[in-house]
C-alpha cells in the first residue's frame, strides 16, 4: 500500500505517494527526476548518493523515502543559484576535482555539509568530511585542494 510523502526538494514542495520500501535515492531519481544524485554501492559504503536532509549529509540509499516526510532535501541540483554555480562547484571545476565524475555529486554534498557546519576546516577535518565518500578514480587530492581553495576564500558565494 502506498503512503503519502510530503517533502521539499531544493525548495520545491512535493506531494507523492510511494511504496514504503522505496528508498530516498529512488524517489529523488525515479519520481522527482533529479538524477544528479547517483546510486553507487547501494550499501551505504560509497557515498555517491549523499544528499542533505534538513542540513545534514546523509546517504540516500540507506534511508526510507518515508523517513524524509516533512523534511527539506537538497540535492546537487540545488547547489547552484540560477545559472551561477556554488563556490564548491566552481572550485571542483577549476581544480579538476573529478575524473569519471560519478562520485562528484556526493563529494559536493558532503563537502557542502561540512562547510555549512564548519566554514574553516583543517585539512584533517576536510578528509574526515569526505571520509564516507569513495572516489574510485582516486582523485582525492584534487578534491581536497578544491575544498581548501573555498575555505581560503578564493571563491565568492553567488548572490
Amino acid at each position: 500500500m502506498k503512503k503519502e510523502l510530503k517533502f521539499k526538494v531544493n525548495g520545491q514542495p512535493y506531494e507523492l505517494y510511494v511504496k514504503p520500501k522505496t528508498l530516498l535515492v529512488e524517489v529523488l531519481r525515479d519520481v522527482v527526476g533529479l538524477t544528479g544524485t547517483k546510486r553507487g554501492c547501494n550499501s551505504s559504503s560509497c557515498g555517491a548518493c549523499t544528499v542533505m536532509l534538513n542540513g545534514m549529509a546523509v546517504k540516500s540509499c540507506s534511508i526510507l523515502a518515508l523517513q524524509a516526510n516533512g523534511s527539506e532535501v537538497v540535492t546537487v541540483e540545488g547547489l547552484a543559484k540560477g545559472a551561477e554555480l556554488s563556490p564548491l562547484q566552481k572550485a571542483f571545476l577549476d581544480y579538476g576535482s573529478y575524473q569519471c565524475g560519478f562520485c562528484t555529486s556526493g563529494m559536493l554534498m558532503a563537502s557542502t555539509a561540512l562547510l555549512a557546519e564548519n566554514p574553516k576546516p583543517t585539512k584533517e577535518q576536510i578528509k574526515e568530511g569526505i571520509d564516507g565518500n569513495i572516489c574510485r578514480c582516486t582523485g582525492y587530492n584534487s578534491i581536497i585542494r578544491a575544498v581548501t581553495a573555498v575555505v581560503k576564500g578564493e571563491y565568492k558565494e553567488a548572490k
Partner: protein
Amino acid sequence: MIKDFEHFAPKTLKEALALLDKYQDDCKVICGGQSLLILMRQGLVAPKYLVDIKGISELNYIKDGKDGLKIGALTTHRTIEKSPLIKKKYPVLVEMENRLASIQTRNWGTIGGNICHGDPAGDPAPVLIALNATLTVAGTKGERNMPAEDFTLDYFETALGAGELLTEIQIPAPPPRTGTVYTKFNIIESDLATVGVAVSVTLGAGDGVCQDVRIALGAAAPMAMRAKKAEAVLKGKKITDALLKEAGEVASTEAEPISDIAASEEYRRELVKVLVKRMGNEALARAKKA
C-alpha cells in the same frame, strides 16, 4: 530487492509499543536503518510490518544528572559526538563515535539502533560495558533494566523480547580517579572493528592501586564481551607493564573470535593481546590525570 512491507510511523513510545505488541515477531523496528536496510536489501530480513520509530522525539535526548548520564535510544551518533557535555565528562564516547562509520551514517544512525542490531563488531557496546552502563527496555507491561553486558546474547541476537523496545542508556557518573579508553583495529578508517577494546581503570586514593577495572572486547566473540579473567589479573594490584602484558594474554585466551573476511582467529587473538595491554596503559594514564 527489498520485499514489500507495511509501514507504521508512531509518534509516541506508547503507540510504538502497542504496534510491537500487536505484530510481535512479524514486525521489525527501524530507526536510522543504517544496518537494517542493508540486511533487508540482501533479503536476510523480510518483515511484514516495519515499525519506524525515528519520529518518536521523546526518546531523543541527552540528560546529565548527579547519578550520571542518560541517553535516549534515538540519539544519533553525531549528536553524541558533538555534545560538549559528553566530551567534557565522558570523552571516550566521543572518541568512539568519531571512529564509527562515516559522518553521513552517524548523522542518521542512532546509538540505540546500533546496540539493538547486535553486531559483535559494533563500537558502542564495548564502551558501554566498560562504562558500566545500564539499558532500559520497555514493553506494554512495563520497563526492565539490564547491564549493557547482558544485552547481546549471540550474533545479531539481543535480550529484547518480542514487543520490547530499548528506550534509554544510563551511564553512572565515573568514580574519582577513573580513566576509560577505547580503540579498534581496522584496515579502512570508518570500517567496522576487526577487534575493538575498551578498558576502564579506577585507582584507589593515594596508593595508586587498581581498585576496579573493566575490560570489554568487540568483534572477539559472538557478542561484545567482558574479559573478566583479564580484569582479575589487574584488580587490587598496582598496575605494571608486566601485569598488563599478562592481562592481554589472559584476555586473548578467554576471547572466542572467529575467522572471517577481516581477519583469522589467530590474528584476532593477537590483536586482543596487544590492544588490551595498550588500552590498559592508556586507561591507567588517564585515571592518574582524572
